[in-house]
């Protein structure tokens, strides 16, 4: 068994090696390069929410411009801001609106991301008023009884400090973070979805796009309408859905050729489709 394992391993590793050589050999020669192709390296860092989208856009742009390298790194919105200010990166990804003291950089709106309340699919509740949501999160209502008749404790899921989803949420419902009494605190949207889909008594707020994607895939969650408006990306796009946050690319100073090219690309129709694929709403 040992020998066979060894031989298999060597063969597989060898074939990987050969493929690697093939891949590099397949890059086109510069001799046939059309003159309007982009070349060089672009560095984009920041929010982990935007990162997968930015990486996909980068890949698309790279496939059109084989000499182009776009490197996307995560590290959070604050890293995105810090890197741009220090000149370490070309574009920053920030998943919120810029603050008043952040106008030394320029924001280029990439997309809108809605924030919706979600509960388990089996939860009989069909809508919650703003007042009810407030009471739940402040701990004033702690049992589903008064809302749906089921005598179960509500598991309140909340986001960690600093996240823009949280900021937007607090802003809309006019809370202070210190007032909220959560049962679980999460970092990413996906975490919230995984928890709610397995807990019939949970309530959380996540990105609409992520929720929609998961619902389509059959995950056991559902979104609740806010102020009578359904939580869908369409309603968000039409401006009817009230709770959303901005996803921005930021730059400092005059953008270089490559930077401008990337940002321009992110506003094309092709990019809009990619953005929608990730559950966000492209800027018209």
């Amino acid at each position, binding site marked *: 068994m040992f020998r066979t394992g060894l031989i298999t391993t060597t063969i597989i590793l060898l074939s990987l090696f050969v493929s690697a050589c093939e891949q590099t050999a397949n890059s086109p020669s510069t001799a046939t390069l059309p003159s309007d192709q982009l070349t060089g390296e672009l560095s984009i860092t920041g*929010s*982990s929410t935007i990162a997968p989208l930015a990486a996909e856009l980068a890949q698309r742009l790279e496939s059109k411009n084989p000499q182009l390298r776009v490197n996307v790194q*995560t*590290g*959070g*919105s*604050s*890293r995105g801001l810090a890197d741009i200010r220090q000149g370490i990166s070309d574009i920053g990804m920030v998943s919120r609106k810029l603050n008043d003291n952040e106008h030394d950089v320029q924001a280029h709106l990439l997309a809108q991301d809605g924030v919706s309340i979600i509960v388990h699919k089996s939860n009989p509740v069909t809508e919650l008023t703003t007042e009810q949501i407030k009471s739940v999160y402040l701990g004033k209502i702690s049992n589903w009884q008064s809302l749906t008749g089921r005598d179960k*404790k509500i*598991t309140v899921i909340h986001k*960690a*400090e*600093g*996240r*823009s989803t949280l900021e937007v949420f607090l802003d809309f419902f006019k809370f*202070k*973070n*210190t007032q909220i009494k*959560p*049962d*679980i*605190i*999460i*970092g990413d949207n996906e*975490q919230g979805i*995984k*928890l709610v889909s*397995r*807990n019939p*008594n*949970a309530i959380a707020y996540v990105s609409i796009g992520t929720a929609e994607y998961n619902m389509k895939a059959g995950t056991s969650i559902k979104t609740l309408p806010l102020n009578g408006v359904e939580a869908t990306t369409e309603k968000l796009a039409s401006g009817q859905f009230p709770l959303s946050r901005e996803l921005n690319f930021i730059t400092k100073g005059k953008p270089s050729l490559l930077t401008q090219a990337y940002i321009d690309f992110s506003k094309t129709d092709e990019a809009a489709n990619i953005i929608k694929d990730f559950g966000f709403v492209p800027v018209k």
Partner: protein
Amino acid sequence: MKPPTSLKTSVLFPLNKDKILLLGLRVLAGLSVISLLFILFYLSKEAIPVFKNIESIKFFTDKSWHPLSGEYLLLPMIVGSLLIMAGAMLFSIPLGIFAAILSQFYAPAWFANVMQRLVEILSGIPSVIYGFMGIIVIVPLLARFEAPGTSVLAGVLVLSFIVLPNIVLISRNALSQVDAIHIDNAMSLGLSRYAIIRHVILPQAKSGLFTGIVLQSGRAIGETLAVLMVCGNVVQIPGSIFDPVRTLTSNIALEMAYAMDDHRSALFLSGLLLMGVVLIIILVAEKISPRENTV
């Protein structure tokens, strides 16, 4: 033990290889210490700014951890980290050592081999996957007993599974390295299997076992992603094992990405604090260690 051949007696073995060897070894060994110093230096540099604006007592007396509102209570998270680590070690040390004993003494060779390979693979599985399994299996299971499911217990269970493979591997290795002479002697004296294991092999293997335990404790208290997923991350001193809790590491992971200025420095400080806790644990371990006062 120092080699009996003193390197000063250059009569038989002049300068050459041995001295160079020693020098080279010394340099490389020194690198380990230097690395530690680098890390400490960096953490301190990043953490210092927080002291300009915030008095240190706040870390223990503030009402809560809400850096954006100026509150910096770290105490519950220190408790959280310690609780989870202690729980995980309590669970995985006996389990791991018994499993090693099984592998080494009681199980048939083919079984032991399968287990060895299995455990080797498990030690390489990213903690994300364990966390993932935690969310999918453990949390809902616990939620049936007591909401919300994400809790100290969930963290302890998931963390135990993360450190378990290494404990099994290191323990088994320690057991197998006991000099055969001792075992032969014991057998010729007519000792029973239990007696040999308990009174001959285990004591001999103690220092190796201890190495494993100390290293994995380090790993346990430093684990970030998996506990982040299953502990609930609520900043509070837990009242029961079903209460959610936040560890220092999860705190850094959760908030570092979005933290600015003072908040950021406070997070680095919590990193330093964690290393302080690790140092204390190590010093305690040194005291009780079987190896003449070094761990």
